């Protein structure tokens, strides 16, 4: 049976899995970003998550908050970019929520994602519907709030969040970009799924799978 809280060890293992799963989709992300951006998102996740994994080796004894914070910085140090800065911002906000916790439950995770979303909005000044990763992160955050409300198990709640993120990412196909590089040719972006939203969905699905299997 899947566990209902995550320990420091879980967090390391979860991040490793997220790193591997997202890197495995690097080519797909590169293609999407090449279609409506500059095509670097594939290399960004490969380098960034490579740095995260390397950094985790030295975080065997760190607490959850430190692991999150350091992983975010490691990613952006190696693969600075819009996505890198937003990933670092999300991790920093999540780390703040987790501060002092030995274990985290769905309630904390829900709060961490909500804060991460808030951080992204502040950093990038975009909102829902602008065809950005917010369009995956915001529904995931809502799903998590619902899950907490309905007292779901951790694995179930995360699966809901991943479903919501994937739906949200899929729905970006219809949207025209209003933020970032692709907003310069906004009209031409309809028909392509947003690469950043896709990455967020991949990451959440991966986290959900980790919890389901552990």
């Amino acid at each position: 049976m899947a566990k209902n809280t995550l320990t420091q060890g879980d967090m390391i293992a979860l991040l490793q899995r997220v790193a591997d799963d997202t890197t495995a989709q690097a080519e797909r992300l590169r293609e999407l970003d090449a279609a409506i951006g500059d095509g670097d998102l594939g290399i960004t996740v490969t380098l960034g998550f490579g740095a995260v994994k390397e950094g985790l080796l030295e975080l065997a004894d760190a607490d959850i908050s430190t692991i999150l914070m350091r992983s975010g910085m490691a990613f952006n140090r190696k693969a600075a970019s819009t996505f890198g800065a937003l990933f670092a911002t999300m991790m920093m906000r999540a780390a703040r929520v987790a501060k002092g916790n030995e274990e985290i439950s769905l309630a904390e995770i829900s709060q961490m994602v909500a804060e991460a979303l808030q951080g992204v909005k502040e950093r990038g000044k975009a909102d829902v519907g602008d065809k950005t990763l917010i369009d995956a992160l915001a529904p995931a955050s809502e799903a998590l709030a619902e899950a907490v409300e309905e007292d779901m198990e951790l694995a179930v709640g995360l699966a809901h969040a991943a479903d919501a993120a994937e739906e949200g990412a899929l729905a970006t196909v219809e949207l025209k970009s209003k933020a970032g590089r692709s907003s310069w040719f906004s009209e031409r972006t309809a028909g392509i799924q947003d690469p950043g939203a896709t990455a967020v969905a991949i990451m959440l699905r991966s986290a959900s799978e980790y919890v389901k299997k552990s």
Partner: protein
Amino acid sequence: MKKIINQPMDFVDEMLEGILLAHPDQLKATGDPRAIVRADAPVQGKVAILTGGGSGHLPVFLGYVGQGLAHGVAVGNVFSSPSAETMFEATMATHGGAGCLYLYGNYQGDVMNFDMAAEMADMEGVSVETVLAADDVASAPREQWSRRRGVAGIFFAYKIAGACAESGADLDEVVRVTQKVVSSTSSMGVALSPCTVPAAGVPTFTIGDDEMEIGMGIHGEAGVQRGKLQPADAIAERLTADCIADQSLTSGDRVAVLINGLGATPPEELYVLYRKAHELLIDQGIEIHRAYVGEYATSLEMAGASTSLLKLDDELTRWLDAPARSPFFEQQ
């Protein structure tokens, strides 16, 4: 495009090593090898100007670290933002107690990272103000200023902000002058061929053998019009007219002109463009105070060129005429 490189992943660091070995009298690295500062940094009691962005645009950005120019730079991978930490490192190595100006091109990855760096610096008690270069007329109309990209016109901002900071002006004053120069600068470019990011190995875009794209960005961002390659005079007319219109320049105005090569276009061709731009400006009664022609902001080996016009007043003219010196740009 064939390249003189070793491993693509080592390209940026080896390039930086080469630059530091060649110019130890002018530049030095910090604890972060991607954070490069003037050899005499920190400059006590003066505003420090920090810049940064992706590699592949030399002299932009590193090339404008020098006397009467910027003080430090954060260097990213080719066409990619530097990290917030690198910019923070450059900031801490240059600031001399009088605050910092972050001056760079309006690209979201850079903005996000440098905003983070500014927050980190703020936590260390170093005050940072930001002015973004956003001179590319093709990227958005003037009314949507925040969506405009920065391109070659940032040269004028470095030149003028650098001279102003060198004079000992305080941060408010440097910010005011820099804001004036960026909002008085308009650029328009044309691309004839793509370039290849070493780590990618394939051209950033494709374009027909007889085509050009007006307004294409310096990373291959889509422009405003793709069409048949035009004669130099027609290109000059289009680029100059767009800059004139953007600034609403009229008879009696005074400008500085920059004809910039994107990489593979020879200086000879840039002067053919300048010839026509000069004629057009003079015909409209616009006075040309200074002309800069050459490679001031490149995109690796892209072929193409851009025209930038800076509308001058007495204050901007004085700072533009001041001396400056870096390994990539000297003015006596």
